[in-house]
């Protein structure tokens, strides 16, 4: 007896509500975009500049007392958050202190760190700084540029690759799905105000890669079926292809999610934001490869003269197994 996530043979119609799905996605993208514009992202020091101190004490953290202790130092905006994690021991109380970039200075001076340590030791004598990170405004500005460039490059590279391997309609569908995923991820980070740092960019690019992986598998089947069923309409072929690959799509998404969820729960708080982005990305990416990428393809239509091509195969449109 095998575990089956789905019935043996599905023949669901994924496009009967194509407009609805596109509509929902469209609305979500707009909402995410508005949130991004209005609320902005909660930039970590990688992008905003400034200093974060991660401190540990055996005594319970009193955020208010910390705040009033730091007040006289006049360091500008200070954010103090207690960090909770199931992997912490009973006496492990962790707090994260973010200090804004100081006017006219690249990175925070050792004296400032010492001052902070001294005043905090009055509140919690055994406090220890387990990590201190400081990024100057020059670098943070560049990091933003590089990050944006990296995401754009990735999307551009994908556009070209799929265009070469398939047709431009496929490429457009895949890229729209990617943009959809990236915008929704930015949206949720803005909506929940989760700290957005350099690692999240890595997560974004991985989401691009993952979502694409899913889309390409569906498209690959579409290409194969378009050759095989010449009389079927594009919509029928698309539906057939998605149904055929559906069980694989679910299997892979599920195994990936299983791995990510264990990392989310057990992997510690340092990378939790990063893992959250990827979990979100896997879900959105799976959704978008069916409901955005494929729907766009159905709307755009594809030229069907694959038969001509199969006689003179273009490099890359057919790959023969070696063995």
């Amino acid at each position: 007896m095998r575990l089956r996530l789905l019935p043996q043979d599905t023949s669901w119609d994924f496009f009967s509500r194509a407009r609805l799905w596109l509509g929902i996605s469209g609305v979500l993208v707009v909402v995410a975009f508005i949130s991004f514009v209005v609320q902005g992202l909660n930039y970590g020091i990688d992008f905003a500049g400034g200093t974060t101190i991660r401190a540990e004490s055996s005594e319970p953290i009193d955020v208010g007392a910390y705040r009033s202790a730091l007040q006289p130092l006049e360091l500008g905006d200070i954010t103090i958050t207690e960090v909770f994690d199931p992997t912490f021991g009973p006496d492990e109380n962790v707090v994260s202190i973010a200090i804004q970039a100081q006017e006219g200075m690249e990175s925070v001076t050792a004296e400032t760190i010492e001052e902070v340590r001294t005043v905090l030791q009055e509140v919690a004598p055994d406090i220890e700084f387990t990590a201190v990170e400081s990024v100057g405004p020059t670098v943070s500005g560049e990091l933003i540029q590089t990050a944006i460039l990296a995401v754009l490059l990735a999307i551009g590279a994908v556009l070209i690759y799929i265009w070469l391997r398939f047709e431009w309609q496929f490429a457009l569908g895949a890229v729209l799905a990617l943009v959809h995923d990236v915008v929704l991820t930015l949206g949720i980070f803005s909506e929940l105000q989760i700290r957005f740092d350099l690692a999240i960019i890595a997560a974004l690019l991985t989401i691009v890669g993952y979502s694409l992986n899913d889309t390409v598998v569906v498209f690959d089947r579409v290409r194969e079926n378009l050759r095989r069923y010449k009389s079927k309409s594009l919509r029928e072929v698309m539906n057939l292809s998605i149904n055929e690959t559906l069980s694989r799509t679910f299997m892979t998404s599920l195994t990936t999610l299983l791995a990510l969820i264990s990392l989310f729960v057990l992997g510690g708080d340092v990378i939790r934001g990063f893992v959250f982005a990827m979990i979100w990305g896997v879900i959105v990416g799976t959704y978008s490869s069916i409901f955005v990428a494929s729907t766009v393809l159905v709307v755009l239509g594809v030229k069907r003269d694959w038969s001509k091509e199969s006689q003179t195969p273009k490099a890359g449109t057919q790959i023969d197994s070696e063995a």
Partner: protein
Amino acid sequence: MLYIPLWRRILIWAVVAVGLLLALPNLFYSRVEVSNDAAQAIESGLTNEELQAQEGRWPSFLPDGLVNLGLDLRGGAHLLAEVQVEDVYERRMDSLWPEVRDALAAERDTVGFVTREQSEPDVLRVRISEADGVDRALEIVRGLARPVVSLTGAGAMDLAVSADGQVLTVRLSEAEQVALDDRTVRQALEIIRRRIDEVGTREPSIQRQGEDRILIQVPGVGSAQELKDIIGTTAQLTFRPVVQAFAEADTDVGSGEELLPFPSQGDEAYALVEQAPVVSGEDLVDAQPTFDQNNRPAVNFRFNPQGARAFGDYTAANVGAPFAIVLDDEVISAPRINEAIRGGNGIITGDFTVEESTDLAVLLRAGALPAELTFLEERTIGPELGQDSIDAGTVACIVAFAAVMIFMVLSYGLFGVFADIALLINVGLIFGLLSLIGATLTLPGIAGIVLTIGMAVDANVLVFERIREELKSAKGPSRAIAQGYEKALSAIVDANITTFMTAVILFAMGSGPVRGFAITLGLGILTSVFTALFVTRVMIVIWYDRRRPKTIEV
């Protein structure tokens, strides 16, 4: 149809075996690390029984490459420094001024009196009193220019001279600026490396980043500040003419002169010295602690030919006068020149203890940084936090593994077991490759491995699902398996190439931890495609050949 030639089977298993063997040392991380350190110590000449015993803890016939742990896992300090290359322009202009002055003074009849004008630090402005002499003056100053020493700037001269009325403006030509920037950054890099090596920490990484930046990552250092102290942000060594050796805080300072503290002569002691150095620390090639003829601790030093010439000329012309050795804007000693020092060898005597002379020699040998550093980014990660991350990452990996493996067996039965074995091999191969190329594992890198565990089964899933489909169209098992692999191939290739492209972009554009993630993700894609297309396939074929089942269930 399912036949795989023997040589290919052997090749596949050989690759797996080599990969796993390379990964093996990582299972005994601390033991191998101790052994490697001992081996290195023995190689560098040290040897004692303890080291021998330590080295023996890991057999020498096994590979001993380890995955480097990133700062976020091991703890340590990270600094991104920007070299203030403009400092060097300024110094060049300061040292050019006497040269220009002397050259023009030789033609006083045509150019008249020469005075230096106030200017931006990176240019030299010179006023001459005879308006008619401008052309001649331009010619003379241009004659001082030398060809640029670099590959790209070949043919260009190092100075750009222009005239505006009676004022000549001298600046470094663009080709020279580029060449000089490059030299300065390389020199700073080398000096930082030497200083960190003198402290003897493990696996420091000191890399040039972009035009004028240096990234310094040193594991095991307590804080970024400690690292900054080691590097020393302003150590600047110069040899300068002394105007007045024993000066007071309120001594009059003439133009081109500077009043500097002289701590060895007392708290309130100062020396008045010229701003333009005769020779600077860049020209120093060696310094050793030694004793002078009266058996007092001293430091012996040697200049490169350029420095030797300048120093020789100066000392010959100034026998009997004192000169100052200035370090970090402090006069450390102002010895009298007893005779011309030719050949570039000299000795610094002062009121040193043996220890002080040794320290000074180290400081001189390590050289002064050619320019100041500004720190753009500083990170300190405590070792406990790193250990916590490793522990959490390990647990997460194991749980992720178990969950995915159980899930695969439940879904695909025996084929799931094959995929699971391949998955184990896959993670082994990732570690093997990481050790082989000496890559650095970071916390996001661990996340990359966990993600790979989830995604690695994808290629297998694609194949198995395809085999299921082929079985539905009532083909025999052998044909279904072969077709499954054949038809899934294009999807596997396309899907993985696109993911691989994003990993490459991440690697190219990311830094530090993100790069670590890109590496494990990229390697994970390679190994997972290999294990899915070859390893599971060999396992399935071997199983099929033995059993010859009439029907199979996937």
